[in-house]
């Protein structure tokens, strides 16, 4: 793992000089700002059941769909297209170090973006007279959920990038996989067929994989190890598949 930090540093640097990072950042902050303003307006008109932070984090999927594909699409596919993956892998670095370095860099940036939304809550804290608007439990739980689930979402993006040679294809692939994970599970649960007794296990598994349920628990301050386990194993599995994907592609060069 001696090259991990070299690659991580390099990748973060390359992301920071890359225009698409700034496009992602602008889009992200614009969307989050708009959502937040909309929420505050609703709260100023009438009393709501949940705190603004709770509603805010419920919309986490919107920036995930835009940001994750934008930030990860380049990571492996671009190197493969340019052929620099070949020069990279002929130095004494392992595929694991390369994949983890790239993954780590995007995850770092993902956290940085989400961290910047803290500013919105700071503004609310400065100017809101009502202390109930800021529920620290929901806030901490929400950010914790973002950090943990982000591990998985970014891994999916990097995996898509390792499969496709073309950036656009990688982005679409990442989007499709994220959609399947975030909404697909929920939609599948509504299928009547799964209500049958025979499919009870399948139903239970899908129920366990409901990300909105996870978010709900986190926002209420419940840190369920089963949820943590879901994201950690998902991340590990996806990263292993990414490493295998890069190596397999190399064999059939």
């Amino acid at each position: 793992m001696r090259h991990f930090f070299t690659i991580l540093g390099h990748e973060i640097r390359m992301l920071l000089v890359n225009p698409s990072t700034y496009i992602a950042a602008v889009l992200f902050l614009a969307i989050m700002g708009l959502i937040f303003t909309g929420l505050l307006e609703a709260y100023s008109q009438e009393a709501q059941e949940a705190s603004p932070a709770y509603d805010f984090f419920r919309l986490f999927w919107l920036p995930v769909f835009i940001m994750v594909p934008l930030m990860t699409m380049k990571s492996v596919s671009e190197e493969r297209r340019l052929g620099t993956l070949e020069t990279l892998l002929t130095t004494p670095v392992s595929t694991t170090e390369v994949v983890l370095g790239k993954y780590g860099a995007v995850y770092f940036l993902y956290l940085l973006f989400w961290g910047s939304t803290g500013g919105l809550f700071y503004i609310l804290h400065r100017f809101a007279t009502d202390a109930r608007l800021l529920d620290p439990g929901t806030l901490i739980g929400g950010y914790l959920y973002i950090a943990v689930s982000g591990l998985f979402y970014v891994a999916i993006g990097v995996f898509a990038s390792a499969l496709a040679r073309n950036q656009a294809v990688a982005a679409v692939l990442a989007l499709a996989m994220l959609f399947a994970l975030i909404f697909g599970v929920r939609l599948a649960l509504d299928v009547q067929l799964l209500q049958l007794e025979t499919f009870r296990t399948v139903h239970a598994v899908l129920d366990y994989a409901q990300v909105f349920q996870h978010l709900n628990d986190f926002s209420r301050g419940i840190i369920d190890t089963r949820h943590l386990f879901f994201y950690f194993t998902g991340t590990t599995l996806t990263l292993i598949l990414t490493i295998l994907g890069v190596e397999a592609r190399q064999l059939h060069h």
Partner: protein
Amino acid sequence: MPAADPASAALTIEVEHLVKTYGGVAAVNDVSFTVRRGEIVGLLGPNGAGKSTTMRILTGFLPATSGIVRICGIPVASRADEAKRHIGYMPENNPLPEDMRVNEYLYYRGRLKEISRERLHTRLDEVLELCDLKRIRHRIIGKLSKGMRQRVGIAEAILGEPDVIIMDEPTIGLDPHQILIVRDLIGGLRGRMSVIISSHILPEIEATCDRVLIINGGRFVAQGTPAELRRAVLGRTHYELELGGDLAALPAVLAEVHATLALQAATGPDETGFHAVTLTTSCDDELGERLLQALLARSYRVRAINRAHPTLEDVFLAATKRSWDIVDAPAKPKAGRPALKNG
């Protein structure tokens, strides 16, 4: 750095019975060769002959189907990480990241090649100087000309002071002036590092390399120094003359000069009565003077005489053409032509 055993210390690359198949088709078929320290070896072959595949296997980027590759005594297949520390590699088309500056890129690569920070700064200066990149060290790679990019690629390959440098078509797409610079650069490595370069540009290989391996259809069809190859593959020397006089009496004169000297081709007399004549011999000695004297003594008029040096191009064409004929022949070395590998 692990110490190589003394017997193979002088050998930096050892390849034994290397085979690589893609879906049943052999890209490299039972190739064996060795490269000594400090030697520059050219891998020559038409497109699709297996040059790039061989090189990729040498670097450990591609696994071989069977066979052994050792770099400085270290088997690439089982100890790839160690072997990679001895290799500087420049792939075909020299891929470089578009949006980095030259010195940033070289610094990053140096770190990946495990050069310590302190050493890297001095080494960077050396390499930039050597490859004449000092003026453009702060330029963005994507905006460099092809020749400059090529020099960046070479700088990257020699950065870690490896024992073995592998360059796949280092001069492709360069103008003659840039080719000269790159050739000098590669020549400057002679004696210190083993260099293996591939090309299908023949004068290129002839000017730079100590030894040439000609590969076709995944097999070596000939190997040796350019001079050896000329002898082995063509086996003959040609003389071109412009001659006035009676050609019918010529064969007798030629037989006097040397037994193997024979008339190969002649054109009819032009308006001044001269014929363009091609003679051929398997004698390696210089026969020009004796030939000239013999012709003048028989009162032939001689306007021009030239000993034609077969270029590597002729050798290459002969070797690759022949390899199609012998590709299915049983492996049997030809007597009297030791430098040749017969299919």
